[in-house]
Every structure is written in structure tokens, then in C-alpha cells.
């Protein structure tokens, strides 16, 4: 069955696009991806989404988004798109061997946590290496953990981890943080947190069976290496847009984000729109993602009317 609109991704942008296109009777198909609900599903309290004066838990907020879109006829499937072809119309989208076609596409694949790129990090992901303190902090009760990064999310996660861990060390490659002052103050005033400046992780030592037991740190100036014992390593070194599907198909900016026309969500292919973090390295908020999701829905609706 050819669709009028397929939405790839299911964070605030994708589900808002789903809500609006569903209400426009476009019967959207949402291919949710590997992380239905997006990045907010791995956060705790969301205190800056308007309309929730007491705050709301990230996963609960995303369940509400989803329920609201489905109420108006959006179809949401926990499926991860593996290939696209936007050369011919209708556009084609694959999930493994299953092919879907659509007259328009809304891309809302969001962003993922950046990793260091070490083999040992990949191997031990979920076995002592984590990119989500709120998901995995619980398993490090009375343990020593490292957190890598120097921005707000590193500070926030470091603070959060002190609820469980006996000792938290922040590993940062520079001699100052780029985090906001209020977040740095919270970290500096927390007795359980210390900082290892000018250092980066060269290797993570451990096994799937026994977890992580240490890392090799390199001093960025002297290049000397030391072994630092720890039970867990948390990554908070920023995010990268999820654009692998669209390489050589859509236009990217120098930072790897999809380019949309100013004042719209149009990509370089007519009928293909992009919203949320995959095309936004400036604001990256749930509410701005939702806003651009709405724009994509309206852009797609207008395109479908005229074609």
C-alpha cells in the first residue's frame, strides 16, 4: 500500500509530525526506529516542556505524544529503517527486506550519544560502559565510576551518579569545562565528585563476564599514560545526528546535520522534509523539535495538495 506520508523516527519531532498529519487525514506511518520515543526516553524529569508546571518524566511525556498521535490515526511501528531510495517517486523505505512506499517523507531520526570510538568501548557497551547515567546508574551502587565529558550533560550525569556511586571522577580532555556555571558549581560542591583534567581514555579494560575494572588514561600534554581503576565508564561527550541513511542522498552541513531551507523544513529533495535534532545543532530542545515536527507536517501537507 502506497502511503501519503512516512515518518522516520519517533521523538518529539516525529510524533508531532504524526499528530498533525494524522489530523489532516494523511494516515501517517511512523517507523519508530531503535529508540521509540527518542532521547527523552532515557532522561528523568523534563522540567522545561511547557504545559507541565510540575515537570514530567521523559518516558511518560513521550507516551503521551504517542497516544495523542495514535488517537488521530497515526500508525506507529517499532521498526528501524535500514535503507531509503528517494531517486524515484513514490519514495521507497526499507526495514530489512520489507519495502514501504510513500508520496512524502518526514525525517526525524534525531541524534545519538557520541562515543569515543574505541573497540573496547563497543565491546563493553552495556557491560560497564554506558551512554545513559539515568538508565544504568542503578547498577553502580557503592562503586567507582568515571564520566567522560565537559558539558552540561556531563555535569548533570555526574551529579546524578552520586546518588548511587561512592565515587565519581569526571575525565575531561581540557583544563576547563564548557558547561554552564550553575552546573559546574553543583559539581564542584559535590564531595563525591573529583575531576581528572587534561586527560582522555585510550583503552577500557574489562570483560563481558566481569565488567569494567580500569581504564588507561593519557595526559593530553605529556602523553604519559596511567591506569585508573573504576567499575563503570559513562560517556557524555555530546551528540551526533543520525544521518547514516541519507549519505549521498541529502545535503549536509559541515557538522553533519541535514540542511533545510530557511523558514521551512524542506530538504534538497522536494517532498522530503526534516525536523528535530537531525537538522538542528543549535537549539536541540524537545519543544523546538516538536515545533519543527509541526512545520514538517504542514510542509508535507501542502506539498501533497499541490502534487
Amino acid at each position, binding site marked *: 500500500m502506497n502511503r501519503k506520508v512516512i515518518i522516520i523516527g519517533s521523538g518529539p519531532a516525529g510524533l508531532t509530525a504524526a499528530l498533525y498529519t494524522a489530523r489532516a487525514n494523511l494516515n501517517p506511518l511512523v517507523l519508530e526506529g*531503535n*529508540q*521509540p*520515543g527518542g532521547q*527523552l*526516553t*532515557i*532522561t*528523568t524529569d523534563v522540567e522545561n516542556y511547557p504545559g507541565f508546571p510540575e515537570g514530567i518524566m*521523559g*518516558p511518560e511525556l*513521550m*507516551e503521551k505524544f504517542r497516544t495523542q498521535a495514535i488517537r488521530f490515526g497515526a500508525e506507529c511501528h*517499532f*521498526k*528501524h529503517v535500514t535503507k531509503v531510495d528517494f531517486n524515484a517517486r513514490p519514495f521507497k523505505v526499507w526495514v*530489512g527486506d520489507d519495502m514501504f512506499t510513500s508520496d512524502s517523507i518526514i525525517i526525524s531520526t534525531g541524534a545519538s550519544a557520541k562515543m569515543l570510538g574505541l573497540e573496547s568501548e563497543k565491546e563493553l*557497551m*552495556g*557491560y*560497564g560502559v*554506558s551512554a*545513559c547515567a*539515568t*538508565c*544504568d546508574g*542503578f*547498577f*553502580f551502587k557503592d562503586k567507582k565510576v568515571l564520566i567522560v565529558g565537559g558539558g552540561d550533560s556531563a555535569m548533570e550525569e555526574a551529579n546524578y551518579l552520586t546518588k548511587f556511586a561512592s565515587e565519581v571522577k569526571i575525565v575531561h580532555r581540557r583544563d576547563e569545562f564548557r558547561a554552564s556555571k550553575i552546573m559546574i558549581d553543583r559539581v564542584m560542591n559535590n564531595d563525591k565528585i573529583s575531576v581528572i583534567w587534561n586527560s582522555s581514555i585510550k583503552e577500557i579494560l574489562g570483560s*563481558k*563476564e*566481569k*565488567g569494567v575494572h580500569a581504564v588507561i588514561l593519557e595526559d593530553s600534554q605529556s602523553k604519559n599514560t596511567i591506569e585508573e581503576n573504576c567499575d*563503570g565508564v559513562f560517556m557524555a561527550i555530546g551528540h551526533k545526528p543520525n544521518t547514516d541513511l541519507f549519505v549521498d542522498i541529502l545535503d549536509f552541513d559541515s557538522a553533519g546535520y541535514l540542511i533545510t531551507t530557511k523558514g521551512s523544513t524542506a530538504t534538497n529533495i522536494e517532498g522530503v522534509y526534516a525536523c528535530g535534532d537531525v537538522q538542528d545543532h543549535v537549539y536541540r530542545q524537545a519543544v523546538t523539535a516538536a515545533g519543527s515536527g509541526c512545520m514538517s507536517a504542514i510542509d508535507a501537507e501542502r506539498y501533497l495538495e499541490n502534487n
Partner: protein
Amino acid sequence: MSENVKEFTSDNFSAEVIESDTPVLVDFWAEWCGPCRVIAPVVDEIATEYLQKVKVGKLNVDNHNQVASQYGVRSIPALLIFKNGAVANQIVGAVPKNKITEILDSVI
């Protein structure tokens, strides 16, 4: 939760999982884990589809942390597949259903 999904605890783990004649899929989860909510309906479906072939159940890590730590669970959701009392394979993180059934099929 489907009636085909059992609830495992530290008390029944040995009888229900270790001594089970059929392979067992154990979903380690917690209330506060967003991705666990995502995977819950998938686990429900698998329980129904693999009825008689695989025993499927959930273990709450908040209430039964000693089982989680015994098996080295450090991230959830974690799906551990037990066969003849030992871990035959495991899947960490919320992954699509076909990934889970692929691994499950290779084990049973």
C-alpha cells in the same frame, strides 16, 4: 502484561529458570527505565508466539537486585536467554523484535 509472561523473583528463579526444561527468556527491567517500557510489548508478543517452546518472564531489578548482579547485568533492558541452567546468549538495550527472535531462534 500478557498472562504468558511470568514474574521471576529471587525466590523462584532457581526453580523457574535454572531448572527449567525449556529455554527461558528473562527480561530484566525496572519502573524507571524508559527503554524497558518500549520493549515490554515486544516481550509480550514473543511470549505468545513462542508458547510451549520458550518460557518468558520478567525480573524487576529493583526488587531482586541480587539476581541481576549475579548475572552481571549492568544495563537494562537486558534480555538473558537461559538454556539448561546457563546463559546461552543475551541482548542489551531495546532492539527491534526481529533482532530478538533471530537470536532466540539461534539458541533454541
